[in-house]
């Protein structure tokens, strides 16, 4: 039930700058996700919000109240640490009850709440174990339960589900969301699972090398990435450098040197990202938008052969080699092994004009 | 084990040492002694100059020497044991640790000052005295006899070296009991006397240095101690001390010298035995190190010896050796007021 406001935050460790000039406003009750490659500064940012690091520069505010130097224990945040940080000398129960004891909750109430939350993370029968006797995923769930049980104002989750299987992860996600909605807890979530980020978040911030690249809702981020880094980082995509050729009615025509041909793109805000005059341009097309062997006139159609078919469960990836340098990935739903392409088959691919997005190259 | 005893020995009188005996000696002699580096080094130099023998010494408390000689019984290291109260020598004799030797100056020794079997002989004597702080108490005020110490006006003025660990103090305490015991055959009266002393005692110090310090700084102003140490402290170290020799008589300890049984260098040991109790040596020890010689034939002794009239108390050492552990145990368990240690002031 707090907003979190980071203004021009920088954090350096000696000569390493982990977070650089970050501005973020996270709304009350929002489910906000940090996405970004390993080592880009997500944990560091969370730790500044929790109060374990002081920013080298900048301010952390909760509800307009400056918290930059407030000690961690006065911030009422609940954090799941990336390394769990379970108390080795306590049992599962004691670990989870810790935050409640600090809050002077009565014994019976504590017992009840710990029991409840452990049931939610499916650990009720492990309540009296020492944490060293748990499996990795079980430990992670204890860490999650410990943060959830205190119903904090702000929940900081650093890859809280990374060691859980898909099913459990699903259940935990639902649980986190339910709690978050019920108490309106502002939640900041770090994950490497894109599906997780895209399905749960109200908004997402994408980081690279300590710099925030884009903030937006999941569909914005996925469908309207602002640059090639975001486009490539979220979801699968094929990127091809292009140059602007001309405008042709509703469409813009670009030229791709790699394909040796023109590319037609609808001239909408969805298809053409904001960019400056002298930016290098890149086209991005998601594999699920690509159609194989369809009849669609002659624009944006290229011939090639299937170089690899990859089965991934619900969907099948087909890699089509257009020429030496360019392989395009197409994804289709798995409709049984009989529908898969054979490797080596000659096919033509169609890149729908309204599914292509033209974006500038990210500046370093 | 700390504590260390402070008992010193001394010796006196000439002796038939002789430069002629330089031959036929082993090349080395090992001496255990509590006499301290100063004395030992000086005698080392002189002895080595006179004989071609390398003297080595181990400088330690007399109780420690006894322990050590005992523990080295199977592997004897020492030749001579120079300095310790006769009690220690008697114990060692009982344990069969000593060798017989009758020195050339035997005639100059009173019977009181040597073992009947010549297992050891006395080198110096140490009378026990009442020690007082001259800054706090004038010579007139000072107690004149043992019984004066019980005067209530000395309440919390007496500092006593914890008696169990000290040969000097054990002797004094035992003597106090013995004074009446010899007549009554019962220690009761003596216990009562000690009880009263305990009431006047401010604290029991663990070692002599602390006792000196406490008396010197006026924490207490009185103690009982031996005469040579007191003189030495006053004259050499500048302590504000003086002493009173109790009028009714005082116990006199004899310090002696002995040759260890199975000594690895017996000849050299005998040479050293003789050497440290020549007349010249005794005189030197008296003048420089405040030891009163046992030899009666030493001349030109310092004033503090010749001027002093010591009345030795008659003591049955054998009885002491037999009874004193019991008496002291009784004192420790029944008389000593544990609060009189330095607790919670």
């Amino acid at each position: 039930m707090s907003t979190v406001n980071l203004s021009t935050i920088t954090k350096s460790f000696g000569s390493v700058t982990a977070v650089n000039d970050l501005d973020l406003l996270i709304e009350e009750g929002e489910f906000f996700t940090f996405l970004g490659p390993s080592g880009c500064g997500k944990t560091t940012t969370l730790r500044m919000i929790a109060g374990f690091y002081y920013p080298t520069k900048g301010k952390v505010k909760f509800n307009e109240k400056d918290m930059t130097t407030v000690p961690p224990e006065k911030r009422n945040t609940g954090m799941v640490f990336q390394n769990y940080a379970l108390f080795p000398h306590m049992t599962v129960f004691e670990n989870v009850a810790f935050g409640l004891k600090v809050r002077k909750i009565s014994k019976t109430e504590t017992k009840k709440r710990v029991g409840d939350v452990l049931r939610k993370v499916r650990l009720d029968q492990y309540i009296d174990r020492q944490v060293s006797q748990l499996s990795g995923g079980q430990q992670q769930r204890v860490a999650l339960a410990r943060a959830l049980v205190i119903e904090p104002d702000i929940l900081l989750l650093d890859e809280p589900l990374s060691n859980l299987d898909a099913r459990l992860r699903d259940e935990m996600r639902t649980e986190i969301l339910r709690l978050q909605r019920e108490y309106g807890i502002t939640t900041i979530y770090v994950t490497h699972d894109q599906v997780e980020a895209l399905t749960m978040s109200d908004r997402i911030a994408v980081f690279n090398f300590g710099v925030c690249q884009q903030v937006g809702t999941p569909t914005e981020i996925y469908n309207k990435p602002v640059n090639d880094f975001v486009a490539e980082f979220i979801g699968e995509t094929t990127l091809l450098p292009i140059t602007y050729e001309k405008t042709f009615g509703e469409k813009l025509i670009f030229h791709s040197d790699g394909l040796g041909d023109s590319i037609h793109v609808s001239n909408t805000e969805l298809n053409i990202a904001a960019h400056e005059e002298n930016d290098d341009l890149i086209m991005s097309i998601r594999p699920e938008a690509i159609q194989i062997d369809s009849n669609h006139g002659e624009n944006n159609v290229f011939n090639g052969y299937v170089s690899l078919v990859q089965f991934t469960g619900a969907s099948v990836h087909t890699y089509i080699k257009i020429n030496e340098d360019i392989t395009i990935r197409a994804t289709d739903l798995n409709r049984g092994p009989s529908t898969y392409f054979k490797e080596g088959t000659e096919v033509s691919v169609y890149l729908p004009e309204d599914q292509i997005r033209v974006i500038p190259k990210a500046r370093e | 084990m700390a504590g260390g005893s402070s008992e010193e020995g001394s010796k006196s009188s000439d002796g038939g040492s002789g430069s002629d005996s330089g031959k036929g000696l082993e090349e080395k002699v090992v001496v255990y002694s509590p006499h301290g580096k100063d004395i030992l080094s000086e005698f080392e130099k002189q002895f080595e100059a006179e004989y071609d023998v390398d003297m080595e010494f181990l400088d330690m408390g007399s109780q420690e020497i006894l322990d050590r000689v005992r523990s080295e019984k199977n592997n004897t290291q020492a030749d001579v044991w120079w300095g310790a109260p006769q009690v220690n020598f008697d114990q060692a004799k009982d344990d069969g640790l000593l060798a017989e030797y009758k020195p050339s100056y035997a005639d100059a020794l009173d019977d009181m000052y040597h073992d009947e079997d010549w297992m050891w002989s006395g080198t110096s004597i140490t009378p026990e005295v009442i020690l007082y702080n001259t800054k706090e108490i004038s010579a007139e005020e000072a107690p004149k006899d043992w019984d004066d110490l019980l005067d209530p006006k000395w309440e919390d003025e007496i500092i006593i070296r914890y008696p169990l660990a000290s040969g000097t103090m054990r002797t004094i305490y035992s003597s106090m009991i013995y004074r009446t015991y010899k007549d009554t055959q019962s220690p009761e009266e003596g216990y009562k006397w000690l009880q009263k002393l305990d009431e006047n005692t401010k604290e029991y110090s663990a070692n002599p240095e602390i006792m000196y310090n406490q008396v010197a700084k006026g924490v207490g102003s009185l103690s009982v101690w031996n005469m040579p140490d007191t003189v030495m402290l006053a004259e050499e170290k500048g302590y504000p001390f003086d002493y009173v020799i109790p009028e009714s008589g005082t116990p006199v300890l004899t310090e002696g010298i002995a040759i260890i049984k199975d000594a690895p260098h017996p000849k050299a040991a005998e040479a050293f035995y003789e050497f440290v109790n020549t007349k010249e040596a005794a005189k030197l020890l008296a003048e420089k190190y405040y030891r009163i010689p046992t030899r009666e034939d030493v001349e030109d002794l310092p004033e503090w010896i010749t001027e002093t009239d010591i009345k030795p108390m008659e003591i049955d050492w054998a009885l002491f050796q037999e009874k004193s552990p019991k008496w002291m145990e009784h004192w420790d368990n029944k008389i000593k007021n544990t609060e009189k240690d330095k607790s919670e002031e």
Partner: protein
Amino acid sequence: MLNAEKRKTLYLLIPVLLILVGYVLYPSIETLIKSFKINGVFSLQNYTDFFGPKAAANLQALWNSVYISLLSVFFSALIGVPLAYIFNRYDFPGRQFFSNIAIMPIVLPSLVGVMAFMFLYGEAGLVPNFIKDVLNLSEIPFSIGGVSGILLVHAYTMYPYFYMTTSSALNNIDPSLEEAAYNLGSGKSKVFWKVTFPLLTPGLVAASLLVFMVSMASFSAPFLLAGGYRVLSLQIYFSKINGDLEMAATQSVILSVVSISFLLFMRWYQGRKDYRMASKGIGAHRSEVNNPLLKWFMVTIGIIAMVILLLPHVTLLILSLVPEGGWTWQTYPQQFGLENFILLFEDPDIWDPVKNSLIMSVLACAGVFVFGIITSYALVKRSFIGKNLLDILVMIPWALPATVVGMNLILAFNEPSPFSFGKVLVGTFWILPLAYFVRFIPLVVRSTTAVLEQMDDSIEEAAQNLGAKWFYTFRRVVIPIIMPGVLSGTLLAFVQAVGEFPTSVLLYTIGNRPISIEIMNQLRMFNIGQAAAYGMIQVGLIAIVMYIAYKFFGVKSENTL
């Protein structure tokens, strides 16, 4: 079936057991047997005596010993743990320097050290009289003596055990654990009591054991400060002086039984929980403090602690600078000069004892270092039957009074035995290094055990998995990780070995007389000044050694010291 693990355990245990049996158990057995004898005949008389007719005194002594030891543990912890916490957890100006000072108390030579205390805080001492004069009081405000004196000296000299073990344990705690507790809303004190402190348990247990046992066996402090106060270690001494060696043995056995019960209790206490840091990955960031008020508060604490800790050393220095007779009845010393040092240095052999002490300590510490590591590794990381027994064996040299250990060694090695390779050791150079070795085994084992308890097993497994043989793993992975603990133990052992007195006095020979004997002899000759000067040489010497250790082995004093 003897699988590879069990075989390894066995290989580890054989040398450990050989040494323990040969140099600890075998000598001690003599004491045990003696306690069951009266005039050479087997009997329980001594024990019936102990609890029977002599009960009043003995039981009182026993009770006093336990009482003093428990309080010593308490007060040592009270000083050592906070100091370690402050010096290791906060960054403030001068931290490095203060943390070096923090272990100075062990550098204080035992006998003259206690005397320095009396000159400082006794009834005629500098501090009370100074306060009296400054405030114009009619009486001195306080002075030490008796129980309070013993406790003060114990706390002062023994808190480094807590300081050192706590320091190395603190540095092994994953900081994210404390962060997690803060994050859950607990304040500083709660985090300390509920998370940090329990996680320090292995270190605290180690230190408590060491302090409890030293206090039980402590001699100088009760003897010097409270001559009549009855404690078991003094009873032993007096029994011995009174010639009742069998009763002394009985009392020693009882003293060790009490100490060992405490050991078993602590082991049980620690065994109930798990203290291995088993976080995923490694989180090691020192929490940042930038509250200026706190900073200056810390600096103040540092300075005050430093002054108090160094006062005895300063007193010793003063004593060494006062010429003979310059400070007898006077409250304050009257004149200063280098006379004592000059007198000392006139003696051509002055450096012999120093050299002896150094060589013997180095020898003993090298042995104890190797042996301690192996033994505590076996104790912590290997499972076998009879672990408790092994642990008791290890601690016996610490549970017995030093004199008894010395006596035991004399009895065991004054005739040829297989453990002395058929030689008589008493009276030779080697008996003293051996004695130091035996005496300080427990110190290194305990401090090593404390850090080992915190080490996550999977680190060792990772090394094995990469193909490292056990010994390689041990050398390259285990030892570097536990090094802080080992070094702190070894350094403590070294410092104490250099100043060791109670066993030295029984065992030294002409060829290997150590420093402490020299100091003792000066004292016996009433040369307090020269004794103090010698003490200062010892202090300086140890300081140099620690500095070298710090410089050349990269031993960070906040880790090890």
